[in-house]
């Protein structure tokens, strides 16, 4: 799975996710990627989220929308909201994976509870940061 989230100079947010799914998946199996609120979500008032991992768990946990809800309803900062959803709530179900997210201020979070997650970010200065494990 691949994905991206962004905040533009006008303060607008967007998210996109794309995947081939799981190797040897059942024909017709759909994961969290195309399910708005599970693997992909964006709202200018809170954050944009793109997720990756064992999709069935992300669907049941409604992961992307949960990050938005914690920011909107609890007033949590992005880093805290994303951390709780991925490291506590998702893991409690047995779900592995992670997400990338950006909030309306341009803060970035990239938590994961798996061994690694191919990831990267860039800001105004153009300096690209990438990591795997």
């Amino acid at each position, binding site marked *: *799975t691949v994905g991206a989230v*962004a905040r533009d100079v006008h303060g607008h947010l967007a998210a996109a996710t794309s995947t*081939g799914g*799981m190797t040897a998946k059942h024909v017709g199996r759909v994961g969290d990627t*195309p399910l708005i609120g599970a693997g992909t979500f964006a709202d200018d008032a809170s954050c944009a989220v793109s997720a990756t991992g064992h999709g069935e768990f992300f669907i049941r946990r409604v992961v992307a929308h949960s990050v938005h809800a914690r920011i909107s309803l609890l007033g949590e900062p992005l880093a805290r909201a994303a951390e709780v959803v991925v490291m506590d709530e998702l893991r409690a179900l047995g779900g592995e994976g992670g997400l990338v997210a950006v909030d309306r201020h341009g803060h970035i979070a990239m938590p994961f509870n798996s061994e690694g997650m191919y990831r*990267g970010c*860039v800001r105004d200065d153009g300096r690209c940061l*990438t990591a*795997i494990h």
Partner: protein
Amino acid sequence: MQTFALAIHGGAGTVPAASLTPEAAAAYRRGLEDALRAGHAVLCGGGSALDAVTAAVCALEDDPLFNAGRGAVFNLAGRHEMDAAVMDGRDRAAGAVAALCDIRNPVRVARRVMEASPHVLLAGEGARAFALEQGFAAEPEAYFHTERRWQALQEERARLHDGGSAADAPAERRHG
């Protein structure tokens, strides 16, 4: 406050650190950096967040190292079934496709669903028909075929045949 920001992922099904060669790690990081630069170029020019995430994801879909688009894994029947979605934070507009078999850059089709249809999610043959109606070209199977993914399918089929379950699959196959 940041003027703009972009973050990407290339999946959580990473090769274990102990077995990832320096050359392979460098290739993955190059792919990630190319995607970041594609999105950064959009944002630098005052482009929208929606255009930036589309550009970044397209770059990753075009890179056979990542499990999407050109590098998509095979399903149990030995075919590709690709899913994609986009969402615009300005108005919560959203578009998605599921089980798309042979269209390049599924994320562009998802965006077209958002922008040119009254729907949010189109699946299977309906998604393919919509893509073709909208001018997207179908690619031959060879475009999406990567030997590494094909071998992974054969190994997974053998494992399932020997009594393994989908839940026991190695992380790089269990995760998108």
